[in-house]
């Protein structure tokens, strides 16, 4: 599946795996260090509440299939989450070994070992991790809008329970940000698409089509028993300053998508790059540029380092890779020599206040993404809050329209993959709960 998307050479191929797969011996040695806490803090820290001590003990006893089952039962995208989760601030960060001043258990790497091993074995015709219930006459039809992590998770859990989910995706490639947005040293496109293939193998249908354009919301509401909105976010935000429009200024997520999917993208002539923003996307772009060999990469952030929303452990990595940080710098104008970008004029605040020109050939804007207000508004009863996020019940993820649920970045404004999976799983659970049992599959 998706072979054509993966043929040819893309820039992400130059970025190797930052945390390679464990060998079985390495995994067992680390698994045996786990204390097997009860009521463990790592489980409490996981948005999908994976029973971490149990899956780790299963690795220790060489029951890798069982370990994968424990993980995927709670988090069907446990494979990509193992690689993209900020474990330093979630499970690993809460490991009791930290309180003992000892090296915590590498939970993410163990989760990757279990899921990658079991998924590859299943793909090769080995034992199935899960056998979906057969779709009986009571099977429900659910339309899911967008093929990102939230929809994939919701669809997978519906399929496992014997229902018929159909995902509508407007892009050529499914997977959402797992395919097009995650830093390549964490997860490559091929790995993300392999995980999508697994979800589809559970009985999930994928159709290409944009709701509101080719696909009519009225028909979805009529034909399906429930709708799940996994819309994600829209275009990269713009600064709104002079000189911004034109070549040499890139939206961060659009750029990462090209890095991962566009064979024609090169960084020729880019010697100095400025990344505007202080969040995790800004750090990702900066690290990717530095790792791809751009000699001078600087992040431009309007406040001081302590206020950055990006994770401290990611920023520390970026600094080690040579990324500079320009603090308290507010962009005023993109400077150009004719068409070509020459740099960015910023206003520095604080003790050394004043204007400064930062020279660069490329400027990358990582200052958030717009909200896809339009699609959500096509469904009657679905409302948006002041930030543009879809309003849902926090437990069931149901919107103002009782047939419509939502999850992922479109309800939280942009969080982790693991949060999207939790949304999708809980929405599926509540859909099934709320359908009259006599008619359920």
């Amino acid at each position, binding site marked *: 599946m998706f072979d054509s998307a993966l043929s040819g050479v893309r820039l992400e191929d130059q970025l190797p795996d930052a945390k390679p797969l464990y060998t079985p011996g390495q995994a067992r*040695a680390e698994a045996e260090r786990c204390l097997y806490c009860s009521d463990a803090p790592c489980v409490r820290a996981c948005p999908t509440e994976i029973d971490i001590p149990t899956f780790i003990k299963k690795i220790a006893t060489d029951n890798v299939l069982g370990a994968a089952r424990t993980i995927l039962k709670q988090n069907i995208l446990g494979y990509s989450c193992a690689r993209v989760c900020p474990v330093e601030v979630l499970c690993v960060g809460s490991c009791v070994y930290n309180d003992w001043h000892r090296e915590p258990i590498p939970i993410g790497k163990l989760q990757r070992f279990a899921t990658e091993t079991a998924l590859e074995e299943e793909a090769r015709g080995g034992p199935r991790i899960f056998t979906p219930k057969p779709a009986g006459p009571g099977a429900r039809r659910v339309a899911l809008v967008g093929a990102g992590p939230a929809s994939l998770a919701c669809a997978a859990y519906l399929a496992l329970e014997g229902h018929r989910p159909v995902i509508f995706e407007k892009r050529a490639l499914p997977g959402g940000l797992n395919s097009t947005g995650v830093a390549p040293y964490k997860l490559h496109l091929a790995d993300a698409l392999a995980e999508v293939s697994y979800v589809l193998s559970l009985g999930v249908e994928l159709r290409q089509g944009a709701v509101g354009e080719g696909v009519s919301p009225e028909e979805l509401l009529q034909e399906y028993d429930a709708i799940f909105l996994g819309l994600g976010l829209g275009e990269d935000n713009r600064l709104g300053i002079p000189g911004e429009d034109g070549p040499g200024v890139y939206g961060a997520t659009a750029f990462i998508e090209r890095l991962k999917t566009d064979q024609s993208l090169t960084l020729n002539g880019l010697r100095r790059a400025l990344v505007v923003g202080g969040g995790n996307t800004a750090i990702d772009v900066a690290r990717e540029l530095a790792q791809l060999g751009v000699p001078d990469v600087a992040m431009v952030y309007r406040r001081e380092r302590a206020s950055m929303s990006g994770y401290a452990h990611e920023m520390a990595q970026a600094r080690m890779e040579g990324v500079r940080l320009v603090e308290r710098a507010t962009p005023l104008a993109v400077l150009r020599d004719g068409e070509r970008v020459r740099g960015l004029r910023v206003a520095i605040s604080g003790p050394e206040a004043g204007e400064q020109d930062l020279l660069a050939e490329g400027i990358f804007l990582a200052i958030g993404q717009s909200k896809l207000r339009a699609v959500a508004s096509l469904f009657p009863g679905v409302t948006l809050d002041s930030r543009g996020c879809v309003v849902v019940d926090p437990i069931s993820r149901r919107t103002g329209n009782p047939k419509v649920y939502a999850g992922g970045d479109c309800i939280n404004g942009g969080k982790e993959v693991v949060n999207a999976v939790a949304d999708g799983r809980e929405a599926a659970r509540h859909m099934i709960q709320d359908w009259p049992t006599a008619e359920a599959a």
Partner: protein
Amino acid sequence: MADLSIDMCGIKSPNPFWLASAPPTNSGEQVMRAFDAGWGGAVWKTLGNPIVNVSSRFGAVDYNGQKMMGFNNIELITDRPLEVNLREIAEVKKRYPKHAVIVSLMVESKQEWKDIIRRSEDTGADGLELNFGCPHGMCERGMGSAVGQEPAVLKEITSWAKEFARTPVLVKLTPNVGDILEPGYAAVDGGADGLSLINTIKSIVGVDLERMVPLPRVGQFSTNGGYCGPAVKPIALHMLAVLARDRHTNRLPISGIGGISTWRDAAEFIALGATTVQVCTAVMHYGYRIVEDMIEGLSGYLDRHGMKSVKELRGRAVGNYREWGELDLNYNVVAKINGDRCIGCQLCYIACLDGAHQCIHLPEGPCRGWHGEPDHGKHPRLEPSPVLFHRHPDPSNRQVRVPVVDERECIGCNLCALVCPVEGCIEMVEVPNNQGFESWQDRVAKGTDKVPGGLYD
């Protein structure tokens, strides 16, 4: 520095650390390297008529990452010609006159015993050890544990050996018996000068689940072996203590064997009555070099406790090994959790809930005890505890959920302290009372031993 030198029924050695009769004492070259490393004595790999061995021979039990917690072998006695072994023993003795070299022996007829004892002693060896313990292979031929399990035979062969021997005779006992005193008495009655124990425990170390053959595998079959290593230490300590407190057997010095890996293990054996200790598995795992720490550690311990000689440690704990009926029924301890050290793993909580007496609760509230009731037992209400959370003092300022012990319910079993991974976090603290010492035997004597709630109440 304390005096570690030993005189065991006339066998002198610079320290109590001997190598047991096993692969580490197979050859002169090995034993000399061991003496150079610091070992005080060596019991040579058992001599007899040479045998053939199988391949493979060893198996092990690993536990949670620790290799060779238990070890098993199906190797027989020496497979080298007698003449070679005797020549090498003489050479070792000549080069290391102050170290103890004991020759382990295993033959069948009285004539064979006579001849092998004479030739062994001609090497200048310091003593003999009769191998009545090997529980695999040799016992099928009427030797090893086949002797050790028959007190009458053990006594008779011991008396033969004593008849022929000029040097001290140690009898090595097998643990594969119902009561260790029976072979112990037989050895005393046969005239033995000393005892050594334990030999290995009859065992199957595991099963190859793909081939359906027990381990270690010899082609398509396997056989039972002898089990040793750290896992058998408690069994050895018990048998040692039984012999050490019995008036008939404790007249003989004992060489303690069984899972000794560290100076601390050795000190425990000596405190329960051993004069010397013999080590094998730990050396097979890590090499002769471990003796350096054993010597330093033991003498450091003796120094710290003001003992001038290792002899002062010998048997110190024997008198405190009693029958259950002699224990104080009024002594009481409860668990105290030190919040400063707790890391919040809740292992004490789950162990107490599922494996003990439901007396430890999560900081958020009481555990659910019997049948889903909010609490259980004599005290239905758990009072709110003042220590619910503990904030670590270091810069991380992390908050740890510290479980709560219901001290009125705690029966002082130790389980929580045993499962706690952090040293010094859970302490078992004595709860003083004024009831005085009263054992079960005291109650029987006073006629107050009846506990209500039995069959005929």
